[in-house]
């Protein structure tokens, strides 16, 4: 694995902070009704993305996830302005305003979505890997899902096929403790989710998902195995989401104290502590980063605000490749 240097720590600090603040902004503009629909935020889970990005090659490797998907494309290189614009429903958005919060995509940056149906992305991730293997490309697919999603049949069928066909895919469960209001304990007799790999003879294990170093190490090992033809891996990242499931969640299923406990091991704070302890940067230098992050988030907001709404024909034009497809009229 690439060494975790001072530069890496500083990048992690800046990236994770940017993702956090970017999403805090989304929550704020959601309340102003500039962003609508559902809004699922990633607050607390950032170390999983930071660690992953350190261990993969974004030129060849692919990411696919569920609907908690605003910051992964940014990590893969998508201009955050375009993600913000998508949530505003603007023409400059990643899907030209067609997809919204749950459906961010960037073919250019190997980000394959952004999927709203729980578990729907799991076979797709294996399918991306199928094509890479078919064409003898060196890419590996990282396929993310929640703790709730592992209870979908799609996972179990896909695990079997991915092993049977030795596909270059790494399945990553982001166990943040809850699927909406349902704790992991209430969904299965076996609470160690990583053990689901055992039944398929798939290499598997638990990972501290609040520490980007631990994440990077585990992902590196899995990705290298897949790249060398060693097939799939299943990793369970133990993490936590600070915010509600979506924006309308009274969170009666957990206590404030529980949330506070996890904030003590917040990935951004952990990285910040190491930076200060190892004297990679001074408090004042980190303050500068904080400031620039804030400014960049404001630029995203401004861009989204000022962008135009899409033309009406786009909702038709994007359905088929065929240019003169005969759509039925729906009103006069």
């Amino acid at each position, binding site marked *: 694995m690439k060494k975790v240097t001072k530069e890496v720590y500083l990048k992690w600090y800046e990236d994770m902070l940017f993702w956090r603040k970017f999403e805090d902004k989304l929550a704020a503009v959601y309340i102003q009704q500039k962003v609508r629909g559902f809004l699922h935020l990633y607050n607390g889970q950032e170390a999983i993305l930071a660690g992953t990005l350190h261990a993969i090659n974004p030129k060849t490797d692919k990411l696919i996830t569920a609907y908690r998907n605003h910051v992964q494309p940014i990590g893969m290189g998508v201009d955050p302005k375009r993600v913000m614009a998508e949530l505003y429903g603007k023409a400059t958005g990643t899907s030209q*305003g*067609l997809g919204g919060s*749950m459906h961010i995509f960037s073919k250019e940056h190997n980000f394959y979505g952004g999927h709203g149906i729980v578990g729907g992305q799991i076979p797709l991730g294996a399918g991306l890997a199928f094509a890479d293997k078919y064409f003898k490309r060196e890419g590996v697919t990282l396929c993310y899902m929640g703790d709730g999603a592992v209870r979908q*049949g799609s996972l179990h069928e896909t695990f079997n096929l991915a092993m049977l066909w030795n596909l270059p895919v790494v399945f990553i469960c982001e166990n943040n403790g809850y*699927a909406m209001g349902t704790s992991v304990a209430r969904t299965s007799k076996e609470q160690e989710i990583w053990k689901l790999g055992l039944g398929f003879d798939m290499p598997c294990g638990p990972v501290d998902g609040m520490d980007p170093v631990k994440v990077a190490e585990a992902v590196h090992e899995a990705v290298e195995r897949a790249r060398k033809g060693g097939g799939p891996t299943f990793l369970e990242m133990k993490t936590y989401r600070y915010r509600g499931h979506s924006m309308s969640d009274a969170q009666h299923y957990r206590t404030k104290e529980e949330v506070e406990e996890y904030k003590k091991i917040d990935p951004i704070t952990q990285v910040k502590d190491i930076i200060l302890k190892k004297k990679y940067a001074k408090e004042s230098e980190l303050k500068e980063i904080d400031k620039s992050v804030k400014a960049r988030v404001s630029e995203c907001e401004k861009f989204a605000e000022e962008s135009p709404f899409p033309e009406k024909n786009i909702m038709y034009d994007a359905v088929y490749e065929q240019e003169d497809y005969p759509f039925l009229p729906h009103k006069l």
Partner: protein
Amino acid sequence: MRTIQFREAVCEAMSEEMRKDETVYLMGEEVAEYNGAYKASKGMLDEFGPDRVIDTPISELGFAGIAVGSAMNGNKPIVEFMTFNFALVGIDQIINNAAKIRQMSGGQFNCPIVFRGPTASAGQLAATHSQAFESWYANTPGLKVIVPSNPYDAKGLLKSAIQDPDPVIFMESEQMYGDKGEVPEGEYTIPIGVAEIKREGKDVTIVSFGKIIKEAYAAAEELEKEGISCEIIDLRTVRPMDHDTILKSVKKTNRLVILEEAWPFGNVATEITYQVQSQAFDYLDAPIVKINTADTPAPYSPVLFKEWLPNHNDVIKAVKKVLYK
């Protein structure tokens, strides 16, 4: 009379039936401890306990099928889908098992089961979360399909659905759960397969169902100011369809507009159109007009979504067209 919310009407219907009939249980994601994703089962865990109000993991195929199996063996399950978009994951169990088991077994097995939850769009939720499946299920022999539009109908029809010996699809809307309406104290049922004239009129018939019917009401109010009198029929049940009520009205008004939130290809409105032209052709003074959602997946952007979803202005235009105004 007292007024209650749509979600309370649903809750009362389920609770009353569960008090009377031990074989009925409620199963689905977040139905118990969370009191329902949209609070339609509020308090039911407390009253009936975890053996009869059952939280499930996100395993629609598994629990839909388990419910069907239990229905073949003495239960009367109510299965809640958080929305019918997610029922797609388990639709095989509904279409291949619930709908067919009776006929395929030569009538040996009953399948008294209700699958309920929200259908159609609910704001800017985009393509995967905005689909109307009434015509999909209504296409399937063996199923009955109910889509109420107000709390009174919801309660009476849901009770009939739970009592029904065959599988029933019962469709609601996230955007209706907060709607208030008059619902009497005490028990009542509404028969499955009977439409209701929600507004009497003489110039044109508008047929609709589910939450979108409100756009027809709004249009009728506007049109009345211009001296145009609309008769509005609420189908309430899509399958079996109450053709008699529609035909009688069309024979009176001689003009028909159908408002349905669904993709235009082969939907419920198409079926009504066929029936009316075959049974009341000579009564029609204008071609039938149907209003649907655009022939595309639902877009997210507010400007696109507005164009995609039909509204009362579209109804007004359609009414004027069939009246040649």
